[in-house]
């Protein structure tokens, strides 16, 4: 055994020798290289825009000169803050939208939580009938744009206020629905709640399924009554999921644009999201940035309150599509009534709106819902100047088909990039566990969670309206839609990526390393195939979100990068109900078809072999 003396000193940190050693060392630590690259990229697309709108909100912009001619562009100013918070105009610009948004947020969240958790309890813990099909149908709203209900509501209750045709109610009874039923707070709350219950349902049923019924049985043997058991055992265990369901729903509602625009604007019911949209359209970007920042502060304080109440470690539960069964309690005589209630609920939230949209899309003259008025014109018509400004039906409409292509391209591109980014983030986070890089990366990948959709859109307008160094101005391009969709979905896909990587034992990669297999081959032959099933689920989620998203991209679309959701909004603004209904229906059908195909394919490909990891 050789005895080497230990008096050799380490080379100094800045010596050439040490620098080349460190460089060589890093070159062979792919997790660090990837981590740094991801961190830089995410820092650029998440933090830089945020800093930029803070800066823009606090400095004079060229468009401010109309109000404030003596201002110097780029100089520090409280002008925007003053306008938003402290001027006569502030009431309309800030305080009313704030109150409306908060009122709307709280009410919808409350209803969604009550409805979602009741359904979750019925589906997971009781013996209602038809669980398979009903359970699948209950998450249908998740695959639809959030404003489908709003469109359906309009077909049903539209009155003569905004002119144009009237809804089914008026057609059948001759009665005009009062304004408060047709537009404003009431219908917005109802339609949003009937959409967002799907999120709370998914989150809470997932959590409920993991609460071991044995814990409740143990409590029962201690002599606790049923309600006492729910209160002191089940509820505390569900609290983290409940908390994140509340926060998630609330933030989403703050950022939602479609429904408040469709149902609120006709009666001047303005929310934060519609006000941001209006400010941007009026070229008052400064106002929009301040509003977006307030929205972000609201979201952050909500997350903070939630984590204070529930505890930081447990406060986030990610959404998975999984549902599993647990011990069911017998509903007895209530079994059929409960089943019928759930089916009735499904009819209202899924069947009725889609039927209404179908019917609407088949009416020749808007507002006439008789059988004799049915036509396939809006699906297959060639274009007729007397109808809907000569806009042809779907299958002959270049604009629609182009937007459809764009939507599908956006869905696939976003899913692909998101999957890749999620995997790389997961790889860098899991392989680098323990280092600061890993923690930072995990944190920043989660940051987009705190940006309400419309606020993120506003941020991106600010960021990419001019070129940044070598990156050209992205406003109005397709790239920016992909970018924002990828970023908005990153919190979920990076969680999927981390979870998938955690399941791959690191020895599977190490053994390949030792055998001389390089990084790319390790990635493509080992890591990617093994994490595929989790990744596909995450990518499918991104695809669905990308296809049905409006709030996120409404500020960024233009004729050059039009997608279906934007097109539908445009048709609706022009009161072309048949077109908007037909296109919406087509969109929903495409989303459902593609998700079914992906699920079937991945189930076929992924059976059996992957059981040992």
């Amino acid at each position: 055994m050789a005895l080497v003396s230990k008096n050799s000193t380490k080379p100094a940190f800045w010596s050439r020798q040490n620098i080349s050693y460190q460089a060589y060392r890093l070159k062979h630590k792919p997790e660090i290289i990837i981590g740094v690259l991801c961190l830089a990229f995410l820092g650029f697309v998440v933090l830089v825009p945020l800093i930029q709108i803070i800066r823009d909100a606090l400095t004079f912009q060229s468009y401010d000169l109309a109000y404030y001619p003596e201002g110097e562009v780029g100089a520090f100013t409280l002008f925007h803050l003053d306008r938003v918070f402290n001027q006569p105009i502030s009431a309309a610009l800030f305080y009313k939208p704030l109150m409306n948004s908060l009122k709307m947020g709280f009410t919808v969240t409350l209803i969604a939580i009550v409805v979602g958790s009741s359904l979750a309890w019925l589906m997971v813990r009781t013996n209602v009938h038809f669980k398979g099909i009903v359970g699948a149908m209950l998450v249908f709203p998740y695959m639809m744009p959030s404003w489908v209900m709003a469109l359906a509501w309009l077909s049903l209750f539209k009155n003569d206020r905004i002119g144009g045709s009237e809804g089914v109610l008026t057609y059948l009874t001759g009665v005009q629905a009062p304004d408060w039923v047709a537009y404003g707070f009431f219908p917005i709350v109802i339609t949003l709640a009937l959409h967002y219950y799907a999120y709370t349902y998914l989150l809470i049923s997932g959590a409920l399924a993991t609460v071991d019924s044995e814990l409740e049985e143990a409590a029962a043997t201690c002599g606790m009554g049923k309600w006492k058991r729910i209160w002191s055992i089940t509820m505390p265990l569900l609290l983290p999921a409940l908390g994140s369901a509340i926060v998630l729903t609330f933030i989403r509602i703050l950022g939602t644009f479609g429904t408040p625009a469709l149902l609120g604007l006709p009666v001047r019911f303005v929310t934060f999201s519609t006000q941001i949209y209006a400010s941007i359209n009026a070229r008052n970007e400064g106002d929009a940035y301040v509003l977006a920042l307030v929205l972000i502060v609201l979201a952050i304080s909500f997350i903070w309150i939630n984590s204070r109440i529930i505890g930081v470690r447990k406060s986030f539960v990610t959404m998975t599509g999984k549902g599993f069964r647990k011990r069911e309690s017998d509903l007895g005589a209530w079994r059929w009534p409960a089943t019928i209630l759930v089916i009735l609920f499904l009819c209202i939230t899924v069947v009725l709106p889609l039927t209404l949209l179908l019917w609407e899309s088949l009416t020749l003259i808007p507002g006439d819902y008789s059988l004799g008025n049915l036509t396939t014109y809006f699906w297959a018509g060639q274009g007729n100047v007397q109808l809907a400004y000569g806009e042809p039906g779907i299958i002959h409409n270049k604009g629609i088909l182009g937007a459809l292509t764009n939507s599908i391209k956006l869905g696939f591109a976003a899913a692909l990039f998101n999957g890749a980014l999620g995997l790389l983030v997961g790889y860098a986070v899991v392989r680098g566990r323990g280092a600061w890089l890993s923690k930072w990366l995990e944190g920043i990948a989660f940051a987009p969670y705190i940006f309400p959709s419309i606020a993120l859109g506003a941020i991106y307008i600010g960021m990419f309206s001019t070129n940044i160094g070598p990156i050209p101005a992205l406003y109005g391009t397709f790239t920016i839609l992909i970018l924002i969709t990828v970023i908005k979905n990153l919190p979920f896909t990076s969680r999927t990526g981390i979870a998938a990587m955690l399941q791959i034992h690191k020895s599977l990669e190490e053994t390949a390393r030792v055998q001389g297999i390089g990084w790319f081959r390790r990635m493509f032959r080992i890591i990617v195939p093994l994490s595929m099933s989790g990744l596909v689920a995450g990518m499918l989620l991104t695809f669905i979100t990308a296809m049905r998203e409006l709030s996120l991209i409404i500020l960024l679309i233009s004729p050059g990068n039009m997608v279906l959701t934007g097109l539908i909004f445009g048709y609706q603004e022009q009161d072309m109900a048949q077109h908007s209904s037909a296109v919406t229906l087509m969109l929903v059908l495409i989303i459902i078809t593609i998700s079914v195909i992906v699920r079937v394919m991945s189930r076929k490909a992924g059976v059996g072999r992957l059981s040992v990891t």
Partner: protein
Amino acid sequence: MGQICLSGIVKSYGKEVVVKNLDLTVNPGEFLTILGPSGCGKTTTLRMIAGLEEPDEGDIKLGDRTVFSRNEGVILPPEMRGLGLIFQSYALWPHMNVAKNITLALKEQKLSKDEIEARLQNALELVQLTGYAQRYPSELSGGQQQRVAVARLIALRPSYLLMDEPLSNLDATLRTEMRASLKRLHRDLDATTVYVTHDQIEALTLSDRIIIMNEGRIMQEGTPYDIYHHPANLFVAEFIGDPGINLFEGHVVKGVLECADVKIPVPAALKDYEGKLVAACRPEKIQMSYKAKKGWQEVKTEILQPTGADTILEVKAGDTSITLLQSGFITLDEGTPLWINFDLDALSFFDPDTQNNLRVGKE
């Protein structure tokens, strides 16, 4: 085939130093086992040789190639070291069949198709898995999975072989069989081998040489025979041997070590030893008689554990427990008197302060 040489290796995780200035040489073609309790730094040492962990200080050489040197600024990634490593979990890729598992690394080396096929067949033959090429790992038993891991290395033909507790996931009967197959792997590849385990039987049966580690330091290195018969210190004495070695601590009084009621002869060199002394004797080296003999000590039978071929006896001399190991299947009633005797040649003596073997007696 070449030498593996580690010198001055230091490794810490945060504040905890897990390997403390380790010097270690594995001779070409040698089968060296690093043996130690969990957390002693043995797996870390192995992973540093493989390149999966990075030492804080020191040098590692494979043959005449420096693969790591903190001072010279050299660090070679694992994929460039040309090693073979068997993991505790076998690390078979679950989504590839046996053939793909074996040939993936060969394809990376850009070998010809015929060569790859020939190596695959040869490897499968050597581990007796011919015909299993299309199976997936989940369709194989634990022993077969392990053999695939072995075949993967046979096909790769590394000149250095590292094994990280490859037998610990197998049940007892398979272990004996797999020990033989690992030994064959070593012989067939003629590779310089480092084997890490906490199981002394594996270490004693497989190795040319054993290194015993504790708390990041080498406690002793030597042949299995040496380690067993001449433990360098109390740690090694207690760690090796099952049932464990008997230790008697006391003072030398009138040329005899007195440990409570047990009296142990000491060699001439220790007749005048002052201070505390620990005598150690392996259970099978203590002589036993059913009848009283002159000069032998009487003890009482406490507990018997017959294992079939042998019997472990726990006896008491006064309040002191002594473990004996006798061949044969012995049945005795509790309290039966027995007589024991210590052979001077079978005793080792340690200084309880330094823990070291005083190396007197038969050496």
